[in-house]
């Protein structure tokens, strides 16, 4: 057999008490698209971060073309031709695509724009990834920004391109375009590692598939040998839990109504315009849309952290006058924030102190705060929501993204139960969660509906929306541009509406 282009052998990496990689192996052949599949926390991203020089492995070897190489920092990875595109892009928003691509490689003291442009244009031509070079990247759609990231890696001489969860933020059309581009890249001599937890994507695009679980490789198979059921079993380690089944909703009275709501951001730019929608008791309403089309403002208006400039918000039939999150919580509205690091976690405080946030006044109506009570709540939640952490007293900032999300889910669902909440706003609640945790969270959302609550599920994951929602509303540039009842769900029609086309 041919020598693999990249070989990782016995890679180990610990973060404090957590073993992220436990002797992981991986092989990439030249000219293939290799899917790296696994649940959240399986170690996929960590393993590739070792290859990209972002983490230093505690043990193990890296071989390129059969020769051992030392990759201690990102510079080393670039030198040997490894480039990685992260889940969250690292672009300078007000720089043009050209400036972003050549960033750090300008050479000399002068920007030789003309020569650099010719180089980048030649590169785009060769790999078949045309992007507009002169507009500030923040004005480009996410799918194009991603291509800029890929060009950036290739411009630095990447022969091995690692894409971490590249489809998360894309519309179905953009996903198609990305997959087509990957094929062209391979034809141009680039080898691709594609990190994902989405089975369908792996089966659709990859030549070979490596499944990881708990920091080790389970198996590497070619696409022909792979079948979906078997892959899930390898990922999860046992038969997967049954998917949540959506009972037909029998909606009751409205728990949330928005009428002509308009929100203006601090710069005076409207971010929501004339939004009218309702969630009734027992109903799960999905909000689809590409990130940045007003979802944050919508979640904020409902949760009480954003004040509308115009329009009416009614909770349980009564207009809310003013007031912040605390008032809205008393009225029975709870929310799972989109950005858990920014809006969800108290990083230096303990897991227990995080779990009680938003419920603390419920448990302690007086002056006194009782840490032992909080600890008890946390111990139960850690068990019930399977939060992997050193214990209730560990700093929450140490938790992995998936476990942080479980912590927030525990906080919100337990809080909803304790308060008898009527409405739950969940913004990308399963982003980055593994399969069992996603199923668990979906079941919790549906359970909340079954007991008479209403859910507003704002998500970028169309599969999730189609699986759970009674209705899907599409947001585009701050407006509701389409609405689909469950019987008319069609991913391409919804995708077109998300991209601003007619439904």
């Amino acid at each position, binding site marked *: 057999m041919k020598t693999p282009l990249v070989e990782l052998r016995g890679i180990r990496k*610990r*973060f*404090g*008490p*957590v073993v992220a990689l436990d002797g992981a192996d991986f092989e990439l052949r030249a000219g293939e698209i290799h899917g790296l599949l696994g649940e959240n926390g399986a170690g996929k991203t960590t393993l590739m971060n070792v290859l990209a020089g972002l983490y230093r492995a505690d043990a193990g070897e890296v071989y390129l073309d059969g020769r051992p190489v030392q990759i201690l920092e990102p510079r080393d990875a670039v030198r040997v031709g490894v480039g990685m595109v992260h889940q969250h892009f690292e672009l300078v928003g007000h720089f043009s695509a050209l400036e972003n691509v050549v960033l750090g490689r300008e050479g000399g003291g002068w920007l030789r724009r003309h020569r650099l442009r010719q180089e980048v244009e030649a590169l785009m031509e060769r790999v078949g990834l045309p992007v507009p070079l002169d507009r500030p990247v923040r004005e480009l759609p996410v799918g194009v920004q991603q291509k800029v990231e890929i060009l950036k890696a290739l411009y630095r001489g990447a022969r091995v391109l690692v894409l971490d969860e590249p489809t998360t933020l894309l519309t179905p059309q953009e996903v198609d375009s990305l997959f087509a581009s990957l094929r062209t890249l391979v034809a141009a001599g680039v080898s691709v590692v594609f990190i994902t937890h989405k089975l369908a994507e792996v089966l659709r695009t990859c030549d070979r598939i490596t499944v990881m679980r708990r920091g080790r490789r389970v198996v590497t198979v070619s696409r022909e040998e792979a079948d979906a059921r078997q892959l899930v079993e390898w990922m999860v380690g046992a038969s997967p839990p049954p998917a949540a089944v959506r009972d037909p909703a029998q909606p009751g009275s409205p728990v949330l109504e928005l009428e002509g709501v308009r929100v203006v951001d601090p710069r005076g730019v409207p971010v929501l315009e004339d939004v009218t929608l309702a969630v009734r008791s027992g109903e799960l309403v999905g909000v689809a849309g590409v990130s940045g089309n007003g979802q944050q403002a919508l979640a904020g208006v409902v*949760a009480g*952290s954003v004040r509308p400039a115009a329009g009416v918000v009614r909770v349980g039939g009564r207009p809310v006058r003013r007031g*912040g*999150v*605390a008032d809205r*919580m008393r009225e029975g509205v709870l*929310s799972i*924030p989109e950005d858990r690091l*920014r*809006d*969800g*976690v*108290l*990083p*230096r*405080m303990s897991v227990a*102190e995080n779990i009680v*946030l*938003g419920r*603390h*006044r419920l448990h*302690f109506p*007086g*002056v*006194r*705060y*009782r*840490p032992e009570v909080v600890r008890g709540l946390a111990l139960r939640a850690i068990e019930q929501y399977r939060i992997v952490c050193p214990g209730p007293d560990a*700093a929450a900032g*140490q938790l992995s993204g998936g476990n942080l999300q479980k912590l927030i889910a525990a906080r919100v669902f337990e809080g909803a139960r304790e308060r008898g909440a009527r409405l739950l706003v969940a913004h990308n609640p399963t982003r980055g969660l593994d399969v069992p945790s996603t199923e668990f969270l979906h079941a919790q959302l549906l359970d909340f509906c079954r007991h008479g609550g209403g859910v507003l599920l704002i998500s970028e994951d169309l599969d999730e929306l189609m699986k759970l929602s009674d209705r899907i509303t599409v947001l585009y540039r701050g407006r509701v541009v389409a609405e689909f009842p469950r019987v008319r769900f069609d991913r391409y029609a919804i995708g077109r509406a998300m991209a601003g086309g007619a439904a």
Partner: protein
Amino acid sequence: MTAGAAARGRGQGVWPYAGALVVALAVLGGLVAALGGDAAGALAGLFRASLGSAAGLGQTLNKTTPLLLGSLAVLLGLRAGVFNIGVDGQIYAGAVAATGVAFLLAGLPRGFAVPAVLLAGMVGGAVLGAIPGLLRARWGVSEIFVTVMLNFIAVFLVEYLSTGPWNDPTAGEAITRAIPPGATLPWLLPQAGAHAGVLLALGTALGVWALLYRTVFGYELRAAGDNPSAASLGGVPVARTVALALGASGALAGLAGAVEVSGFHYRLILGLSPGYGMMAILIAVLSRRHPLGAVAVSFGFAALVVGTDSLQRSVGLPASAVFVVQAAVLLVLLAVEGLRRNPA
């Protein structure tokens, strides 16, 4: 930084600090020698003057009091996510209020006058702390600007009072008349010259600990300081909490001013705070924003300051050289703390 590094950092315990102390003392000896002094004698004298004698211990305890109260003020702010660099101004505001009330209450029994004086100091400091708190809560004005500006106002107020209306005409310098004897703090160790302020400060440290870890307000304060956005989405009234924290922080600093007047100087003087506010920031950071840690660090700082001050007498270093020595020792301690946090 990774979780692993954090875990290692915690595991190291007190050894880095012990090492830092050895290095600091070596630096100190070297500096004294370089400045033409007797290094061994200086170190011995330093110990005798700060901890190794009754009078020295008394001075160290007296010095601990404003440093501890000041650092509690700073760390309460830091815990709420605000940087109170106006502790000096709040110490002066507390001292002014305490002195004024002491004059008003001349002739009243100690059991009434002393609590009133201390309370006045807290109110004075709280007012000065509440101003930046409210400006920040209402309009998002940076507390750093406002507290720095208020420092100037407080210092000039003290200058006006000590040279003007309250001036002691017999003294010939910027100090006020002495406060009535009934308004002075009782002694803790009369032979050592230690007043009871240190007990007050210790009690306050315990109080701040209880406030932070055993009250709902303290929980909300820490949440607001850790991540205001998440706290706000958890229903914490962040702006109000932060404003209250700054007010409380000012009250603690004001208490320090009142104690200095009522326990140590018996009058308001210009230069009542020789940079306590800045040292309090260092102590708050070195004690990792924990009130009980601040007790130990304040005591160590006080011993250091008192001990090095004595070098003027014991080896005849000029006052400015003493400041150089103090600063060098501090730099060593801070460098060690920096290395501990971010191992190279």
